[in-house]
């Protein structure tokens, strides 16, 4: 186990190096740079002044030099400052990570609390009305984009009922009630696709487990239905479910880009979205690197959980 962990951690290095190269290349390949943004289309600007502005951001240097300089700072733990806001990127991340983390955790909690019981129920009562209703629900959940659900929620709960504010983020420690009010609609919107996928996986995982011989044996030897369910069915079904949660967590983080923009939340998704559209290179590169690290670590955690759930893997 220890050796396995160390090997996985070492694998992080080439992965992250690749990510850094890729994101650097991609963001520099899109036309335009920060100077287009700070200049706007103030088109009276002279060529010399434009060059001056470019130079002030260090963009006059060749790309390999820019990459080497950036990497040099990153290796010392310095992500640099944003072109756009001129704030330190770590400072900004420390403000924003908790927001996105809260959003993702709340969304994942909603999804798990809703999807797993319904999925199990749908599997047990296969081909019943509950099963059909769950299937239709899943279909809607998968096909309805979450920005649309967000808009529907805003129209119903802010515009018509006036219950929940559509914007106006406050940190939890300053105003817990206000915070939950603001975070409710975003996390529900974000939870939607995950709920749908999870429900589907839970149903098929439970169905698969139910069909196993040992379940039939357990029943045959007269174990109570509840014991069969928890000891033999759910335990086996949980492995694919955990995998799905782990993989979908990345999709969840991707979804925060749109959801945070709609609800005016100061999270990572919004930060990276604004930075891409303004070609704020240090932020795009730095934040992608941090997010990639987080993602790789999450999949590592999922793999470890796996091992705990599945004795076959534990002994390897």
């Amino acid at each position, binding site marked *: 186990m220890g050796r396995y962990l160390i090997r996985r951690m070492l694998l992080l290095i080439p992965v992250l190096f690749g990510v850094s190269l890729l994101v650097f290349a991609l963001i520099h390949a*899109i*036309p*335009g*740079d920060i*100077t*287009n*943004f*700070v*200049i*706007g*289309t*103030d*088109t*009276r*600007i*002279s*060529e010399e*002044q*434009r060059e*001056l*502005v470019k130079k*002030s951001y260090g963009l006059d240097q060749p790309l390999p030099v820019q990459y080497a300089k950036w990497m040099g700072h990153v290796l010392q733990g310095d992500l640099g400052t*944003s072109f*756009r*806001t*001129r*704030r330190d990127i770590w400072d*900004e991340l420390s*403000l*924003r990570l908790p927001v996105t983390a809260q959003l993702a955790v709340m969304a994942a909690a909603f999804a798990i609390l809703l999807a797993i019981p319904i999925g199990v129920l749908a599997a047990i009562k296969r081909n019943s009305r509950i099963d059909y209703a769950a299937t239709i629900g899943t279909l809607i959940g998968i096909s309805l984009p979450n*920005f*649309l659900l967000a*808009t*529907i929620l*805003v*129209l119903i709960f*802010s*515009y*018509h009922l*006036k219950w*929940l*504010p*559509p*914007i*106006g*983020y406050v940190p939890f420690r300053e105003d817990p009630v206000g915070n939950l009010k603001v975070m409710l609609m975003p996390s529900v919107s974000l939870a939607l696709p995950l709920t749908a996928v999870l429900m589907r996986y839970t149903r098929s995982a439970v169905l698969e487990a139910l069909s196993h011989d040992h379940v039939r044996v357990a029943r045959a030897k007269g174990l109570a239905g509840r014991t069969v369910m928890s000891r033999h069915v759910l335990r086996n079904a949980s492995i694919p479910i955990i995998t799905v949660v782990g993989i979908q967590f990345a999709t969840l983080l991707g979804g925060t880009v*749109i959801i*945070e*923009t*709609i*609800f*005016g*939340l*100061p*999270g990572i998704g919004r*930060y990276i979205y*604004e930075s891409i*559209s*303004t*070609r704020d290179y240090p932020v795009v590169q730095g934040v992608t690197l941090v997010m990639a690290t987080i993602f790789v670590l999450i999949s590592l955690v999922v793999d470890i959980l796996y091992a705990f759930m599945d004795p076959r893997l534990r002994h390897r």
Partner: protein
Amino acid sequence: MSSFDPAGTKPARGQDAFEFYFRQILAGKLTRRDAMKRTAVAGAAVIGTMAAAPAISSAWRTSAQDATPVAGGTFRMGMQSDPGALDTQLQSLTAAWHVVEHIYSNLTTIMPDMSVAPDLAESWEISEDGITYTFHLHQGVLFHNGREVTANDVKVSLERLIDPATASPSASDLASVASIEAADDYTVVITLSAADAALLSSLANSSCLIFPPEVIEEHGDLSQVAIGSGPFKFVEYIPNTHIKLERNADYFVQPLPYLDEVELLIAANDTARTAALVQGTVDFIEYVPAQDIETLQTNEDIVLTGNAISQIRMIGINVTREPFTDVRVRQAISMAVDRGPIIEAALFGFGTPTDVVLAQGHWAALERPEPPGPDIEGAKALLAEAGFPDGFETTITGWAEYGFLSNTAIVVQEQLKQIGIEAEMNLLDSGSMGQVVYVDKDFDLAVTGTSGYVDPGAVFVENFRTGEGGNFVGYSNPEVDELLAQGAASTDQEERAAAYRRVQEILLEDLPWVNLYIGQQYEAMKTFVMGYQHIPTGSNRMVREVWLNNQ
């Protein structure tokens, strides 16, 4: 203002039109069939009549304005975008301007009727030759740090803008300035290298804010601090969340301001911004989304104010490229365009069709009848004459992130098909658009717009003078250059107007731009918000006169 922020709406891609119709269905205003029909209209060719842009009544407000203002309260404003940073000398952005305009004073300011008025400068004299401007400052004005504003602060603030070391993207605001001197503590003398009639209005730009130089020494720049001498003091800025301001009790225009606090909340999404106003999270929103104007007008708790803005939307034609070098081709395009359906699709009818750059009623506008409808046969004949009886293939480059501009481009594409011009659509994100069209000038037809202006000289020089950086269509006409020089050199408004009217006539013949429409911009607020006035530049500076009638 110099940054391009076309009506300031930046919806997440692909959701705006759909969202609108969905909402109408919810409100019971449209049946599903109507919705399908209208979606088709927004997305494809449109043949229809122009809906007259409804005027917004402000009659009820005039009576309310007579009441005596009550001081106090917190005013919460729903803002369209996050400024990121607040140093308007380093970034030319509307969002930052909409924050700093409450905190800083300039030498001059722009009034709701678009005239230039004194701000920090109490009065000024201009020499006969229009080269020397002498400004007399108000005495006893205090910065928020308690120090008095002196002529030297003005000199340092403005010099920072033009100093090459600052590398300011807005340095051209003061391009005509040769020197800035403090004659004594309250007198500033600005000497120009050539007469520049636009100087007084340029000084009102957010790039020409006056700050205490010691702030730069302490913080390096003004990105995350703001100390001015304006009506409100900066309290805090939490990125993507809010900006808090508090009353400056020492503001030199007493008894202003009335409000104790101003909170600017960022509500980038159109639906969320409108909903925040209706729900009560904010008392005011800027950039009312065009699709919400009608619904908000019927809401009894809400009042709208606004009108046309000084920003034109047009088809810019790359006149250096075949076949657009032939004026007959450009004329054909102009004749094929039908502005009514374009405005309907882009702005739900809230726009004014025009074929000249300046809005009717502007002091330098060329008087024009409403633009005529399309003349397809005439356009085809012209194309045939130019050697393209069957039309040709080309591209339209446009803004993907501004729904109204991409809709404009789509309708133009359909309308051009009618005369055989098959245009491939090339919609770009804002960063790419700036590079491809405005820097590389690599396009055939560009559906785009101008930023707002106060002095008309700026918009003509920038866009049409030979070799000018902003002349992205590559237009050149010596007669226009000559007229523009005349317009800039004279301080006599009538003389200037005559020059600019002639320029507009020539542009109508040469057609480097096929002008389409002038947009409208509205602010919406709760009925208890008193004293607010819309300024056509898009500025919200009248917040200093706002008071709340609900206390």
